[in-house]
């Protein structure tokens, strides 16, 4: 910026306002870390469950899902560290964070309620995960994430009627479409904008 007392026209003022407001919208796209981290973690858990179920005699195949617990710690630590380092905090970013924390609480309650039939939670989790994904897509105006949220809901219905054997496959597919595809698109955009 030049000399602060320089006279501005109305158009120049408007240009400055638009330019500066747009600059504070971008940071949320760096949330691609969470999409990729959770996308891969749940994809691996789902596929492991499916393979153990189909190709082995292991009855406690759903134990692979305990990987979620360290996943929550990794995610929280990452959030805490990046939050402390953050040089700017936007309202949209805070809303984005609380939507996902709300989802974490809701999912935890579901796991407690359904603790005796964990093998049946997949459609419900997808149903619930569709909501924050869909809203996040709108918050950052990113269509692949909106589509990802819708895809979660569709797959939740499909696997509900297809039966439990299809739960892990449906979950893995949801991760590919709903988290990983939008996550890599966001990551590439961030990297591209950094250049």
């Amino acid at each position: 910026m030049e000399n602060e007392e320089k006279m501005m026209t109305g158009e120049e003022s408007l240009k400055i306002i638009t330019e500066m407001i747009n600059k504070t919208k971008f940071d949320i796209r760096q949330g691609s870390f969470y999409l990729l981290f959770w996308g891969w973690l749940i994809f691996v858990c789902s596929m492991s469950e499916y393979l153990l179920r189909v190709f082995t005699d292991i009855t406690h195949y759903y134990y692979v899902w305990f990987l979620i617990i360290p996943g929550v710690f990794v995610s929280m630590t990452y959030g805490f560290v990046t939050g402390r380092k953050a040089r700017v905090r936007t309202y949209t970013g805070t809303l984005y964070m609380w939507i996902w924390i709300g989802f974490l609480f809701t999912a935890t309650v579901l796991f407690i309620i359904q603790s005796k039939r964990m093998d049946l939670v997949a459609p419900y989790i997808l149903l619930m995960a569709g909501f924050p994904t869909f809203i996040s897509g709108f918050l950052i105006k990113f269509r692949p994430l909106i589509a990802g949220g819708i895809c979660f809901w569709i797959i939740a219905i499909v696997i509900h009627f297809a039966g439990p054997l299809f739960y892990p496959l449906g979950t893995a597919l949801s991760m590919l479409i709903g988290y990983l595809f939008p996550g890599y698109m966001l990551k590439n955009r961030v990297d591209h904008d950094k250049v």
Partner: protein
Amino acid sequence: MTRFKELDPILHSQLRLAVISLLVGTEMAEFTYIREQTGATAGNLSIQITKLKDAGYIEVTKKFRNNYPLTICSITKLGREKFTEYVKDLRDYLSPE
């Protein structure tokens, strides 16, 4: 003849307007972040931030991170109201009835 309301002189300045516009969508922003985004020099930015602070439009908090001083800025309720008013006056000025 159309009479225009005079634009707020505190905000009708290139750098101060940039700072307020940047802060309006944030809960807080560090001085270094504002400097990078506006492209201003540290000295000039510091003077303009003090003017905005003295007018009650922003709050400035000093902290330390890893023994380094940190200046954090956030917009106040008054600052937000004045910014909204400024945008409205600007709109009237640009497209008068």
